[in-house]
C-alpha cells in the first residue's frame, strides 16, 4: 500500500503540473488587458497556488478538524520552503547545465519588498498555528492581508494597458494523438488547433481547474493513505512530499521564465505565490470550515509540531532573504547555501517527527529564563 500511495502522489503531481499549463495559458489570455502588477498578484498567483488552495480544502473537509488542518499547514508551509529554496536551486542548476550561466542577476528590491511582506506573513501564521482553538476569525485574519493587497492594487494601478494587450499565441495542429491524451495536453484537447478566444479560453480554464481538482484530491488521498500506512502524522507527509508535488507547477513556471531571461519574474513568482499560499490558500479554507463546523480544537502534539515547523520556516525565510539581498547575483556559493538550508529543513522535519522536540516551547522557556535572570540582575 505504501507503493500504491506513492504512485497516487506521483500521478497527482503530474496531473497538477499538466492542468497548471492549461490554466496558465487560459488565464494569461483572459488577463491580457490587465497591468503586470495586478496580473501577477491575481491571475499568476492563483494559477500557481491553486493546487495548495484545493489541497487545503480537501484536507480540511476530507480528513477534518485538527488532523485535516495539519495537512493544510504542512502543504502550505512545505510549499513555502520549496518555493524559496528549491526553485532558485532548480533555476540555477538548469541555467548552469543548459546555458553554462554561472551568475544570475537578481533584483534586490524585489526580494526586499516581497520578502519583507512574506516574512511578516510567515510570522503571522506562526502565531496563528500556535493557538489551541482555531476560530473563523483566524482564517479571516489570514485572508485579510491578501484582500487588502488586492484592493490596494486595483485602486492604485491603471486597469487597462492597451486595447489588445500583449498576448501572442500560435495555434497547434488540430490532430489529437494518444500522446496528447496520455500527457493531458489540455491546450490541444480543448482548443483543438483553433485560435484562442475568450469563449474557448474560459472553457480551457474551467477544464483545467476540474483536472486540477482531481489532482488535488488524489494528492490528499495519497498523503492520507501514506500517513496511515507508515503511521506518520499527516503534517510530516504533507510538509515534504505533498508540498513538493504541489509546487511542481511553480518550479516549471519559474524555470521557463528564467530560460527566457526573465529572471525577475522567475524569482518574484516564487515569492508572490508564497504570499498567496500563506494568506489565502491557508486562511480562506480555514475560515469556511470553521464558519460551517465551528472552531477546531487543535491536538497538543500537532500544535507543537506545526509551531516548530512555522518557526523554522520563519527563520529560513529570513536567512534566504538575507542571502538574496547580499550581492547582485545568484552564484554557485549562494546556491550551495540554499541547498544546505533545505537539507537543514528536511533534517529538522525528520528529527522533529522522531524526537518530538518542542522547539517553540524551548525557545520560549529560554527567553523566559533569560528575562528572569535579567530581572534578578
Amino acid at each position: 500500500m505504501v507503493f500504491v500511495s506513492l504512485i497516487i502522489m506521483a500521478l497527482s503531481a503530474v496531473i497538477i503540473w499538466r492542468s497548471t499549463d492549461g490554466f496558465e495559458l487560459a488565464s494569461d489570455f483572459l488577463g491580457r488587458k490587465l497591468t503586470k502588477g495586478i496580473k501577477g498578484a491575481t491571475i499568476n498567483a492563483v494559477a500557481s497556488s491553486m493546487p495548495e488552495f484545493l489541497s487545503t480544502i480537501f484536507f480540511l473537509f476530507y480528513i477534518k478538524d485538527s488532523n485535516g488542518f495539519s495537512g493544510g499547514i504542512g502543504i502550505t508551509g512545505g510549499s513555502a520552503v520549496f518555493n524559496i529554496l528549491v526553485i532558485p536551486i532548480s533555476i540555477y542548476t538548469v541555467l548552469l547545465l543548459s546555458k553554462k550561466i554561472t551568475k544570475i542577476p537578481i533584483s534586490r528590491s524585489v526580494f526586499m519588498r516581497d520578502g519583507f511582506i512574506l516574512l511578516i506573513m510567515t510570522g503571522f501564521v506562526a502565531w496563528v498555528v500556535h493557538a489551541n482553538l482555531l476560530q473563523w476569525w483566524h482564517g479571516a485574519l489570514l485572508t485579510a492581508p491578501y484582500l487588502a493587497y488586492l484592493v490596494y492594487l486595483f485602486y492604485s494601478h491603471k486597469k487597462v494597458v492597451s486595447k489588445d494587450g500583449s498576448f501572442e499565441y500560435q495555434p497547434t495542429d488540430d490532430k489529437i494523438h494518444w500522446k496528447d491524451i496520455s500527457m493531458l495536453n489540455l491546450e490541444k484537447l480543448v482548443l483543438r488547433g483553433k485560435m484562442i478566444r475568450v469563449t474557448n479560453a474560459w472553457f480551457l480554464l474551467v477544464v483545467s481547474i476540474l483536472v486540477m481538482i482531481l489532482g488535488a484530491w488524489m494528492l490528499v488521498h495519497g498523503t492520507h493513505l501514506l500517513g496511515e500506512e507508515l503511521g506518520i502524522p499527516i503534517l510530516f507527509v504533507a510538509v515534504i512530499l505533498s508540498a513538493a508535488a504541489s509546487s511542481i507547477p511553480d518550479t516549471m513556471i519559474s524555470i521557463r521564465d528564467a530560460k527566457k531571461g526573465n529572471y525577475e519574474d522567475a524569482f518574484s513568482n516564487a515569492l508572490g505565490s508564497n504570499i498567496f499560499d500563506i494568506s489565502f490558500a491557508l486562511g480562506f479554507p480555514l475560515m469556511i470550515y470553521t464558519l460551517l463546523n465551528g472552531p477546531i480544537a487543535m491536538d497538543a502534539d500537532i500544535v507543537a509540531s506545526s509551531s516548530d515547523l512555522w518557526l523554522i520556516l520563519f527563520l529560513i525565510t529570513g536567512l534566504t532573504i538575507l542571502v538574496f539581498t547580499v550581492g547582485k547575483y545568484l552564484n554557485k556559493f549562494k546556491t550551495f547555501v540554499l541547498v544546505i538550508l533545505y537539507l537543514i529543513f528536511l533534517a529538522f522535519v525528520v528529527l522533529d517527527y522522531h524526537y518530538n522536540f518542542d522547539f517553540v516551547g524551548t525557545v520560549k522557556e529560554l527567553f523566559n529564563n533569560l528575562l528572569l535572570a535579567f530581572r534578578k540582575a
Partner: protein
Amino acid sequence: MTIFDEIFRCIKKQIAMRRHKDVIGTVQSVSFIVAYFFVAFSIFLAGWYGLCQLIDEPGALLALYIILFLLAGGLLGAWLWVLIKIPQGLSREYDAIKNQIASGEISNPKEFSNALAEFLVGYFSFFRFDVVAAQVKVKDNAPITFPESGFNIEIDEYELTQKSKETEGLISLGRVSAQGQKCYAYLVPIWFGKAWLGYFCVFTDTRLLKIFADYLNIFEEQFVDDQLMHVLPKKS
C-alpha cells in the same frame, strides 16, 4: 512614506474622485454585489444542509461541493457583472471616438470605419460575445476590415450591401469561413432616419445569444449612426 500611508492616500484619492462620478452607477454595482452574494450564499447553505442530511459522512464530497460552488459562483458572478457593465463601459469606451470626431481627428468615413472596426473587436470581448473581426462599410467607400492581416473573410461585399439595404435590424449570416476557421457573422445595417449609410459586420467565435444581438442593434442606433453623419461629406 509607509505602505499604510500609501494605502490611505489612495483611498482618500478614490473617495475624492468618487464625488465626481455617477452615484447611481455605484449604488447599482453595490446592490448587485450584495444581492448576488445573498442569493449565492443562500443556495450554498441550502445545498450544504441537503448534503449533510442526505449523506452521513460527506467528507470529500463536501469539499468537492465547496470547490465547485466557488468555481461556478465565481464564474457566473464575473459573467453577470460584465453583462450589467456592458452599457456603462460602452459609453465610456466609445466616448474616445466621439471626442476624436468632435476634435476633427476623425474627419472622413475611412477614418471612422477604421476606428469603429477596431473598437468592435477591442471592446466586445466577452464570454459568448467575442468579436474576433469586424468589417465596416460606409456608402460610396471601400469596406474596412479589422484586423487587416490574417483574416481573409470569405464573404461577398456586394451581397452584404444589398442585404443591409433591405432591413434595419441585425441579420444573422450564419457560419462563415475566415482564415480556415469557422465563425459566425452578423450584419448590422446603419440607417439614419430613412437614409442608408452603410453597415458593419461582426464575426464572432460562437453563436450570439439574443441579448447580445440586441446589444449590437442598440449600439448601432444609439452610438454609430449619428456619429457617422458628422464625418460624411455634407452634400451626401
